[in-house]
């Protein structure tokens, strides 16, 4: 971590002449303005690149740099926030002046001087992923997916591949004595293909990534496996018939279908909604909100995962938080503000899209622990239902509890067997109610491949999901075939 601090200092202080004690004095002057309970500074330097391929050629590439500092002052439930892309003492002081006006009167407070750097987790190497492969090899990687997809089947008419990396360095200093830094690499490789047969066209998509160098995609033919998966999905969908409509038993495959948990449970357990009493889960800690087979966690501490962080964006080390244990609601995910107002500990879930956004309680990697059933047994137990294995995105209305998620690969289950593929359909349910109808949980926990992005209040952050195979008795499937 002290190596991370050197990286951060080289980016934020050396070019600007800023010094650590000036951070303390800025925070100190904010706290001495009456009525401010907490203040923090968030420095960020982000470099990113992306490359894209279509028509078998990499024709587009882009590179960008964004840097700046966000300044926040909190007084009770009130937050003042300003930011600047100019990292300098004068810009800091100006932002501090602006935001402390959130409080008009009250007690003067002082800051705790940091006693040292926050010891975060060490979940990923502090590398620069943009430089982890040379440009020619990046191009070749994109081209290799295109070739693989086209080689697999002549019905593949279109292949689109995207490769992206971010090198994100942050430093947080707060009035509670927090001083923390993190160097966060992130890479992503995604592929979409279009298959055509007898005038019918269908799409298939896959991808993956994590907080790793680009070489991750070359190891174990990972990149190529995304191309194979996209082709397989597109070809399956060429055979798909209309999806059924109505309430039925649904078996969800392992891995990415865990987006169910993210929507049906995760968002509703974010601290801000529960402090405000606007969530369908508000005030229900200790109550049974899911079947006893369900234990669901939010875990920011899995090595190299897309949703993992050494520390959150408020400098709190991430942790594995149990949200639901054997069906009983255990707790919420928290940032510092909402934890303080609810009288609980922060859980390392204070996240923000960038220095120009305010932190909020956000998920990291959300998944359900495995159960006892063999996945084949689960499918065998269903006479008539839907087996959904791949999904696009989802959405939830946390107040009513209604959630949706859209299947991109699904099959009918008839007499305990997976049979015909069906067209994509949206599944809809009510979070607290649907989870009580989980009747079987598989022993095959899988996490997603690392492409998830979660949006809340206009802010996007990378997340992960996962689950074992699940059987839910009675979920509404939005097909067209009555």
């Amino acid at each position, binding site marked *: 971590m002290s190596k991370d601090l050197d990286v951060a200092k080289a980016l934020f202080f050396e070019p600007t002449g800023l010094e650590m004690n000036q951070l303390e004095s800025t925070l100190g002057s904010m706290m001495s303005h009456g009525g401010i309970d907490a203040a923090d500074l968030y420095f960020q330097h982000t470099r990113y690149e992306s490359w894209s391929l279509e028509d078998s050629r990499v024709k587009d590439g882009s590179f960008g740099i964004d840097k700046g500092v966000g300044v926040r002052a909190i007084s009770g439930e*009130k937050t003042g926030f300003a930011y600047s892309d100019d990292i300098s003492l004068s810009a800091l002081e100006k932002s501090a002046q602006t935001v402390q006006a959130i409080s008009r009167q009250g007690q003067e407070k002082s800051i705790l001087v940091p006693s040292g750097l926050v010891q975060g987790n060490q979940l990923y190497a502090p590398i620069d992923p943009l430089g982890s492969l040379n440009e020619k090899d990046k191009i070749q990687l994109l081209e290799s997916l295109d070739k693989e997809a086209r080689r697999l089947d002549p019905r593949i008419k279109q292949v689109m591949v995207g490769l992206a990396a971010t090198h994100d360095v942050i430093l947080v200093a707060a009035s509670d004595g927090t001083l923390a830094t993190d160097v966060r690499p992130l890479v992503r490789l995604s592929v979409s293909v279009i298959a055509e047969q007898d005038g019918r066209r269908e799409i298939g998509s896959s991808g993956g990534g994590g907080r790793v160098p680009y070489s991750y995609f070359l190891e174990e033919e990972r990149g190529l496996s995304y191309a194979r998966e996209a082709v397989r999905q597109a070809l399956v969908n060429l055979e798909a018939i209309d999806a059924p409509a109505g309430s039925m038993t649904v078996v969800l495959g392992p891995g990415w279908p865990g987006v169910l948990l993210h929507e049906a449970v995760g968002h509703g357990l974010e601290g801000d909604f529960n402090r405000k009493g606007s969530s369908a889960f508000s005030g229900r800690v200790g109550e049974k909100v899911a079947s006893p087979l369900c234990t669901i966690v939010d875990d920011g501490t899995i090595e190299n995962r897309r949703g993992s962080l050494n520390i959150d964006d408020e400098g709190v080390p991430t942790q594995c938080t149990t949200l639901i244990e054997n069906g009983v609601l255990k707790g919420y995910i928290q940032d510092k503000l909402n934890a303080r107002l609810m009288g609980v500990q922060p859980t390392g879930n204070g996240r923000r899209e960038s220095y120009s956004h305010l932190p909020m309680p956000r998920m990291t990697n959300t998944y359900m622990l495995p159960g006892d059933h063999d996945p084949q047994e689960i499918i065998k137990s269903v006479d008539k239902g839907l087996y959904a294995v791949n999904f696009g995105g989802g959405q939830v209305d946390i107040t009513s509890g*209604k959630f*949706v998620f859209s299947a991109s690969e699904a099959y009918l289950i008839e007499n305990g067997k997976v049979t015909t593929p069906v067209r994509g*359909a*949206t599944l*809809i349910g009510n979070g607290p109610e649907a989870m009580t109808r989980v009747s079987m949980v598989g022993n095959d926990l899988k996490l997603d491949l690392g492409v998830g992005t979660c949006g809340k209040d206009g802010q996007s952050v990378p997340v992960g999901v996962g689950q074992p195979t699940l059987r839910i008795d009675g979920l*509404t499937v939005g097909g067209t075939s009555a």
Partner: protein
Amino acid sequence: MSAEANMKANKQMDPELMRAVEYALAEAKGAGATAAEASIGMESGLSVTVRNSEVETLEYHQDKGLGITVYFGRRKGSASSSDFSKEAIADTVKAASNIAKFTAEDEYSGLADESRMAWNYPDLDLCHPWAVNSEEAIDLAIATEQAARDRDARIINTDGVSVNSHRGTHVYANSHGFIGGYPTTRHSISCTVIGKESDTMQRDYWFSTSRMASGLESPEFIGQKAADRTVSRLGARKVSTCEVPVIFSNDVSSGLIGHFLRAVRGGALYRKASFLLDSLGQKVFPDWMHMREEPHVLQGIASAPYDSEGVATSANDLVKDGILQHYILDSYAARRLGLESTANAGGVHNLIVQAGPKSLEQLISDMGKGLVVTELMGQGVNGVTGDYSRGAAGFWVENGEIQFPVEEVTVAGNLKDMFLNIAEIAQDVDPRRNIQVGSILLNKMTVAGE
């Protein structure tokens, strides 16, 4: 550029931004680029959120960004930066040039045609700064929230009211010698409240947005509307799975037209990733339907004198008598398809679907029995096949009248059929949106519920 146009442009453009893009283009030329384009913008604003009559957040926004694309023959590279210093701009040009060393040749790449540039563009009156300070904004928000609470005792909580005022300025230039820029403003008030009845809660919102503060609806109106919408959803239930007519209210009808626009966009067409391939000159909607793009509406929410490649925009018919008149093209997609740019780089500007003569109430009466959808959830739209399946909430209609609120259902169909099966469009156009269309009645969709 004519002297007159030049003077006009200079008057509207921010001098710092002009200097920055001109420097970026000069650097690109110096680096050996055969063509280049640069886009630069600055935005500042104030956002205030109030909840339970207290300030929750007070945010001061200050964003800026520069993007440059360089062409070396048929190779292309792009880069962006938030730093406008000469060194940073030079580095950005260098980064873009470096990328162009590795990208493949693309015979269709390049700037839009010189002859299509908006050499003389109109002032669309898009900038009306609002001298609102944080205290005044807070008072407006408090008044809005209070109006919602006073409206109905079942409004027991709020998700806050936000008042936003943003001012931006932007310059685009390319190596044809085109340079354009103008300032814009956008202000809004939005109110989200929570209602409760027995054990269930519902949430809904209302917002008002305008280029001018005087164009905003009153706090009372916004608060009351948010409260009415929320309360009307209390007691919502599922319905049985059925095939019925469906009305997409004006809350969601613009989204439906949005799916059509995406399907006739150049990028989707040349990739053959659209369910409306080869639809030019074909009947896509019923023959009484017309759609027109009006980019030059004064103070319009999506008005623009030129598109994001500098191509002059102009009013045009997109759909006439149900027939698609042109695709939605930027210069790249146009060259790939052997067509001309339609000045739609970056999207459409004020798309107006001709309204019908009836009110929403009359449409409901015409429908007799079915579902009025006021909210859609999720991303269940497949742009390649047109398959459509989304979560929905709204109201159940029987005997031509609303009976009760509905939730936790899906509506499904195929967009291609849905477009052709539009029975009527009401007159209740929502002027807040880029796509302006009233409520749409569809003859038949599958509603999945219990």
